[in-house]
C-alpha cells in the first residue's frame, strides 16, 4: 500500500477539484463525496500502516518517487513520498480525525448554502496536509506547507462576507508567510550546504556540516515552525482564526495544521542533532509559548478562543519536547497525537454547544449545559480529563513524559524548562476546568430565545469516537513504549537519562498542581456565580485577555510604520523617482526656452552669434595650434 500512498493525497485533491469545478451541480451529494475521499485516504493510510508493521523496524521507510519535480541542472527535486512511521502516524491522525470532522461537518454545515465549497476546502486541506507529511523533501513539504496555509486561509475566511472574518483569514496567511520566509531561507541554506533538499541527502550530509550551518538552518526551520504552529512570537493569528466554522478549528487549528511545526522540527532531527544551540531556542520558544498560551487561556471568555489558546499552549509543550532532542521527539509526537484527539473532540464539543446555543460563543452566557446536552458533556469531559493529564486518560501519558523529559539535562535548562512545563500543567488544569465548569456547570445564563439541545447523531458520533480516543489512546500507545519504539527509526533511539528530580516526585507534583488548578476553577466558576459581563479585571488579566497586546504591538511595530512607509514611498515614487524624469523633461524645455532668446529674430544678433562663434573657435584653434 505504501506504493499507492499517493492515492491518499490524490483522492481528497481530486474530490476538491471536482467539487470546485462542478459548482452548484454538486451541491446535493458533494459533502458525501468529501467524506468518502477523506475516508478513502484513511484507508490508504491504514493499508500503509499494516504494510509497514509487517516489515522489520529498520525497513519501515518506503520512499516512492512519482516523477521529477524540478529537473534542474544543480537542483534536482523529485516528487517523492516517504512513508515511514512518522509520516504514517500523521497520515492516520489526519485522515482519521479528518474523516470524523468531515462527517461532523455534514450536519454542522447543513444549512449553509455553500456547504459543498466547504467540503472542497476541507478536502483540499487534507490533501495538502498529507502532502506536507508525506513529502520526502523540504521543497515538496513546502508545497504542502503552503497548501495547508491556503486551505486554512480559505476556511477561516469561509464566511468572509463578515469583514472581520476576511481579515482574520488574511492575518493567518500573512503570519504564516512570515514563517515561510524561514523555510525558504532554510532551504537556501540547505542547498548551499548540502546541494539538495531531500530528507535523505540532508540526513546523510548533516553530520559533516558545521555546527554554525546547522544552527542557522535549525533556527530558520524554527521560524517556519513558529509561523505554522502559532508559537511565540508568531502566535497572534491563531486566536483570530477561530472565525472559521468550528470543524475547521477542530481539524486545522487543533489536530493537524498547527502541529506541522512540530512535525517539521522532528523531521529535521538530523539537523537539530548537530545544533544544540538551536535546540535550546526551540525548547525556549516552546516553554514560553506554553506559558503564554496558558495565561491567555485563563482570561478568555470566548470558548473557541480559550480552546485556541489552549492549543497554543499544548503545542508549546510539543515544541518544548522537540527542542529537547532525541529524548523528546517521540514524546512530542505522542502528545501531538493524543492532543489531536482530545482537542479535536473538545472543539467539536464546543461546536456542538454553539450549535445548540445559536452560535453563542461567550462562556459567560453558558452554564448548566450538562443537562441539555449530555453527550456533549460526556465527550467534552473526557477530553477535559485527558488534557488535564489525569491518569489513565491519554493526556497523562503524553504530557507527563514531556514534563519528565524537560527535567532531564544539566545546568539551568532542566529547571527552567521543567519548571515551565510543570507550572503549565497547573495552569492548564485551571483554565480548562474554568472552561468546562463555565460551560456545563453552574447556573444557566443563557437567554430565553436559546433552547439548548443535543446535536444530531452525525455530530455526536464523531465526538464520541474522539472521546474514546481521548480516553484510551494514550494508554494503548504508551503500553510498553509502543509508540516510542514505532517512531524510533525516525527519531532515533534515545539513551535514557534520569531527570534532575526523581520521577515519582515529578508525577506527584504534577498531579498536585493539576488538582489545585482544577480546584480553584471549581471554586471560582463551578460553585460560585459567574457574572454575565466580564468583571473589571486586574492589569494581568487584561493583558492576558488581550493576548498580551500582541495585536497592538504588531500594529505599532509593523503595521503603522509599514503603512507610513508605503504611503511615503508612493509619494516619493511620484514626486522623486518619476518627478526626476518629469523635471528633467521640463528642464530640457526650459533650456529650449532660454536658448530661444538668442533666436530673437534680429539678423544682427544672428550675425553676432556667428562672429562670436567664429572668433572663439578661431582663437582656440589658432592659439591651440601654435
Amino acid at each position, binding site marked *: 500500500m505504501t506504493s499507492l500512498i499517493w492515492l491518499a493525497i490524490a483522492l481528497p485533491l481530486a474530490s476538491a477539484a471536482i467539487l470546485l469545478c462542478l459548482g452548484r451541480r454538486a451541491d446535493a451529494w458533494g459533502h458525501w463525496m468529501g467524506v468518502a475521499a477523506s475516508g478513502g485516504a484513511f484507508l490508504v493510510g491504514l493499508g500503509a500502516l499494516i504494510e509497514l508493521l509487517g516489515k522489520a523496524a529498520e525497513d519501515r521507510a518506503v520512499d516512492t518517487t512519482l516523477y521529477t519535480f524540478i529537473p534542474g541542472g544543480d537542483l534536482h527535486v523529485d516528487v517523492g513520498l516517504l512513508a515511514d512511521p512518522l509520516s504514517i502516524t500523521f497520515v492516520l491522525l489526519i485522515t482519521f480525525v479528518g474523516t470524523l470532522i468531515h462527517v461532523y461537518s455534514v450536519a454542522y454545515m447543513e444549512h449553509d448554502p455553500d456547504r459543498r465549497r466547504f467540503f472542497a476546502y476541507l478536502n483540499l486541506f487534507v490533501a495538502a496536509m498529507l502532502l506536507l507529511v508525506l513529502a520526502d523533501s523540504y521543497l515538496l513539504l513546502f508545497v504542502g506547507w503552503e497548501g495547508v496555509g491556503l486551505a486554512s486561509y480559505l476556511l477561516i475566511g469561509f464566511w468572509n462576507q463578515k469583514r472581520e472574518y476576511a481579515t482574520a483569514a488574511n492575518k493567518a496567511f500573512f503570519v504564516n508567510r512570515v514563517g515561510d520566509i524561514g523555510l525558504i531561507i532554510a532551504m537556501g541554506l540547505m542547498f548551499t550546504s548540502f546541494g539538495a533538499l531531500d530528507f535523505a541527502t540532508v540526513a546523510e550530509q548533516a553530520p559533516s556540516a558545521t555546527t554554525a550551518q546547522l544552527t542557522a538552518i535549525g533556527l530558520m526551520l524554527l521560524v517556519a515552525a513558529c509561523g505554522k504552529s502559532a508559537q511565540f512570537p508568531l502566535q497572534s493569528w491563531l486566536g483570530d482564526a477561530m472565525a472559521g466554522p468550528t470543524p475547521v478549528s477542530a481539524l486545522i487549528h487543533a489536530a493537524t495544521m498547527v502541529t506541522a511545526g512540530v512535525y517539521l522540527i522532528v523531521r529535521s532531527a538530523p539537523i537539530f542533532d548537530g545544533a544544540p544551540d538551536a535546540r535550546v531556542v526551540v525548547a525556549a520558544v516552546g516553554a514560553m509559548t506554553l506559558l503564554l498560551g496558558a495565561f491567555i487561556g485563563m482570561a478568555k471568555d470566548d470558548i473557541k478562543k480559550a480552546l485556541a489558546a489552549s492549543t497554543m499552549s499544548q503545542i508549546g509543550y510539543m515544541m518544548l519536547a522537540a527542542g529537547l532532542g532525541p529524548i523528546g521527539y517521540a514524546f512530542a509526537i505522542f502528545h501531538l497525537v493524543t492532543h489531536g484527539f482530545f482537542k479535536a473532540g473538545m472543539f467539536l464539543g464546543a461546536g456542538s454547544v454553539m450549535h445548540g446555543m445559536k452560535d453563542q460563543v461567550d462562556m459567560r452566557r453558558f452554564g448548566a449545559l450538562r443537562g441539555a446536552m449530555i453527550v456533549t458533556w460526556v465527550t467534552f469531559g473526557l477530553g477535559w480529563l485527558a488534557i488535564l493529564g489525569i491518569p489513565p486518560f491519554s493526556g497523562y501519558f503524553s504530557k507527563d513524559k514531556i514534563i519528565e523529559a524537560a527535567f532531564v539535562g544539566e545546568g539551568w535548562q532542566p529547571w527552567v524548562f521543567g519548571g515551565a512545563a510543570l507550572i503549565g500543567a497547573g495552569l492548564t488544569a485551571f483554565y480548562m476546568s474554568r472552561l468546562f465548569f463555565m460551560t456545563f456547570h453552574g447556573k444557566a445564563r443563557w437567554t430565553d430565545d436559546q433552547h439548548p439541545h443535543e446535536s444530531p447523531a452525525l455530530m455526536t458520533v464523531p465526538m464520541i469516537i474522539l472521546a474514546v480516543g481521548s480516553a484510551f489512546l494514550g494508554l494503548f500507545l504508551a503500553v510498553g513504549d509502543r509508540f516510542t519504539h514505532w517512531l524510533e527509526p525516525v527519531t532515533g533511539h534515545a539513551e535514557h537519562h534520569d531527570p534532575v528530580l526523581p520521577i515519582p516526585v515529578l508525577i506527584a507534583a504534577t498531579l498536585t498542581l493539576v488538582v489545585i488548578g482544577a480546584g480553584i476553577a471549581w471554586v471560582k466558576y463551578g460553585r460560585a456565580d459567574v457574572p454575565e459581563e466580564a468583571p473589571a479585571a486586574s492589569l494581568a488579566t487584561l493583558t492576558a485577555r488581550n493576548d498580551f497586546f500582541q495585536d497592538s504591538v504588531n500594529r505599532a511595530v509593523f503595521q503603522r510604520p509599514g503603512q507610513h512607509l508605503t504611503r511615503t514611498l508612493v509619494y516619493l515614487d511620484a514626486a522623486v523617482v518619476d518627478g526626476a524624469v518629469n523635471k528633467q523633461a521640463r528642464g530640457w524645455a526650459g533650456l529650449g526656452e532660454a536658448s530661444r532668446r538668442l533666436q530673437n529674430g534680429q539678423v544682427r*544678433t544672428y550675425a553676432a552669434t556667428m*562672429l562670436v562663434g567664429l572668433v572663439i573657435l578661431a*582663437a582656440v584653434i589658432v592659439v591651440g595650434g601654435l
Partner: protein
Amino acid sequence: MVSPVLFWVVALLTVIPSLALLFARKAVHIAMSIVCVMVGLAAAYVGLGAPFLGVVQIVVYTGAVMMLFLFVLMLVGVDQREDLKETLRGQRWIALFTAGGLAILLISVIGRVSISPQEEQVGNPEDIALVLFDRYVLVMEVLGALLITAAVGALVMTHTPRLLPRKTQAEVHAARVLAGADPVNKPMPGVYARHNALDVPALDPDGNPIEHSVSRVLEVREQMSDGDEFRARLESTANPEDHQNPQAEAEGEK
C-alpha cells in the same frame, strides 16, 4: 618693394572713410565714404602690381556697384538717417569686442607669418588673360551662370510687368476729372513767392499753402518754409478782398 608712401596714403584713404560705416548717420555719406575706400583700394592694387585689377576695381566697384547702392538709396529715400542708438541690449559691445577681437586675432596671425616676397609679377591684361583662360576658364564659364542667376533674380524681385492695359492720355485725364481732381495742373512750389523758393509751398487760389507741392526731401530735412511768411507779405501788399476770406483769416490767427 612697395612704396611706404603709397601704403600710408592707401591706409588713410581706406581706414578713415571705412569708419564711416560704423559712425556715420546718413547712408549717403557712408556710401560716398565707401566709394572713397574703393578708390583707395584701386590705388593699392596698382601699387601692388595689379594695374588691370585697379582699373577693374574703379570700374566695377566705384562705377557700378557703389552707384547701384546709391541708386537704391535714392530709391528708398536719400533722407535715410539712422539713429545710432542701439536697440539690442549689449549688441554694441558684443560687436565692438568681437570685431576688435577678430582684428587682433588676424593681425597677430599675420604678424607671425614670414613670407619672403617673390619677384613682382605685374598683372597686365595680357598676362591675366593667359591665366584666366587657361586655369580658370571653367570658373569664367560658371560665372556666366552666376550672372544669369543674378539678373533673373533681380528681375523677379523688382520688375513689374504691365498689369493693366496702357491708358491713353485722354483716358487718364478723364479718370482724374471723374475722381474729382483739379482739371488743371497743380501749382509748382514757390508760386507767388518772391525768392528762389523750391522750399516754399505753393498757395492755392485761397491763399492756403499746398504742403505737398514741396519736395519730400526738403520736408524731411526740415528745410521747408510753411509759406505763412510769404502769405503775410502778400497780404500786406495785395488787394484787400483777400481779407474777406474767412478761411484765410482763421489761418492767419493760427
